[in-house]
């Protein structure tokens, strides 16, 4: 290589901008995620009595199950989009660092899922008559760290499942087992805040550890995945 290598941040920013612009114009991922989680909310509100006092105990699990499944819808599209016109192949031969692409995809998906959560939270409050008993502000770090955990895992495994025969089916099969500690942290943390019974600090620390460990690991491993054809 004679030229100076392309900087990580410029590639990340360019890819992120492209993804956001694509999403802004098509709204494919966001629309399908929104409708999907709306369906989950409605179906679950039929199967449980939303007026029950226990709704506070179950909503933590419900919210995150809805977001988890909705995120899978978006994550499946994130790499499949790059397969058209051999964009991914072009990326592989370019001197751009592999991690820049990964970071951009993670950040893009993170933004989409956070937007989804912001739009869906009022609906959950309405459908389940939520009244938070614990410190509400703690839900924000839980949401951010939990979403990052979901998205960083999902983006990595979506790239991995791109190399399998049954792409769309493979993603949840790989993603869910690895995400169990993070899902447990999000669900138990949210429930702790909603009921106000016990402090949620432990879960925030757990999610933070999870995020740090897996983001580091995936940044180290992503190049292998990208180049495995």
């Amino acid at each position, binding site marked *: 290589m004679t030229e100076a290598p392309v900087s990580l941040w410029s590639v990340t920013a360019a890819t992120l901008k492209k993804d956001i612009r694509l999403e802004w114009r098509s709204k494919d991922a966001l629309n399908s995620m929104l409708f999907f989680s709306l369906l989950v909310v409605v179906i679950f509100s039929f199967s449980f009595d939303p007026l029950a006092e226990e709704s506070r105990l179950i909503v933590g699990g419900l919210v995150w199950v809805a977001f988890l499944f909705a995120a899978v819808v978006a994550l499946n599209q994130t790499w499949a989009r790059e397969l058209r016109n051999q964009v991914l192949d072009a990326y592989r031969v370019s001197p751009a660092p592999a991690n820049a692409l990964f970071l951009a995809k993670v950040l893009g998906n993170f933004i989409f899922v956070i937007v989804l959560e912001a739009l869906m939270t009022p609906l959950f409050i309405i459908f389940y008559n939520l009244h938070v008993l614990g410190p509400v502000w703690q839900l924000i770090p839980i949401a951010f760290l939990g979403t990052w955990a979901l998205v960083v895992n999902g983006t990595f495994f979506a790239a991995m499942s791109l190399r399998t025969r049954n792409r769309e089916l493979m993603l949840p099969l790989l993603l869910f087992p690895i995400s169990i*500690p993070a899902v447990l942290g999000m669900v138990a943390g949210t429930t702790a805040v909603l009921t106000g019974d016990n402090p949620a600090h432990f879960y925030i620390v757990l999610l933070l550890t999870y995020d740090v460990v897996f983001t580091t690991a995936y940044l180290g491993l992503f190049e292998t995945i990208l180049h495995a054809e």
Partner: protein
Amino acid sequence: MKRGFLILSVLTGLLLVYASYQALEVAPTERTMGDVQRIFYYHVPSAWTAFLLFFINFVASIQYLARTKPSAQTATKWIFIAIGVAGAVASFLPPVQQQLTSLGMRPSALATTALMLPVFYLLLGKWFPGEKLDILAVTSAEVGVVFCTVVLVTGPLWARPVWGIWWAPGDIRLTSTLVLWLIYVSYLLLRRFSNSAQTQMLAAALAVSGALDVPLVYFSIWFFRTQHPQPVIGGNGSIDPRMLHILLLNWLAFLCFASLVCWSRFRLEVLKREVEEAYAMESLGEPVAVAPSMPLKRGTR
């Protein structure tokens, strides 16, 4: 090679029979649980074997990944050595020692385990060079899943009469074993459905992330009160020496059995790859360049 396999088979058969006899007949009956407790001689050895196999899978996978770059290879080697030395030194530090003794664990046991890590890592790399590491990873994952399934089946069978419930959700050992099983099943699924030419790399990456997940699973549930009996070795649990003796005998039998299965599975995988390679060479129109270690029969597909 073939004779070794035969000797091991006979030895395993005899050991399994003898260990079963010891477990079902000779071992003293537990005072409160009665005969149900005898499942313990199958449950615990299966668990140890499964964990050992998953550990082998992890070490083989990380070594397979590191193999691609010389810098990564050196780095991983030194990380393993550092972990071993640090673990050995740390287990004799007064505060750690105190903590360990209060848990009923001997610091020397932990130090030995820590020192075994780099030794194990280096030996595995020496015995299984190159692609053999990946074959070892597949083999250990497959056999490990089988033993882990035995653990997950025998556990509830014991728990129902003793605890009154089949399964204790939120229990640390139950949940982490289940998650471990799920991770390795997804590992095997990935290997099965992958259509990449570098399945080995993908699988190794998944195995490493899976192994990183295990301590996190453990910590995520650590403050739930655990129902599971304390570990009998390196824990607070106490056990009759006769029972311990029979348990270890059973573990030896299970280990022999596991290595027997692993051995034949390893050979099968080696042969399968040789056949695939031969087919690939044939389709390229070149004479078969690989030297088959066993005569290939027709219709091997």
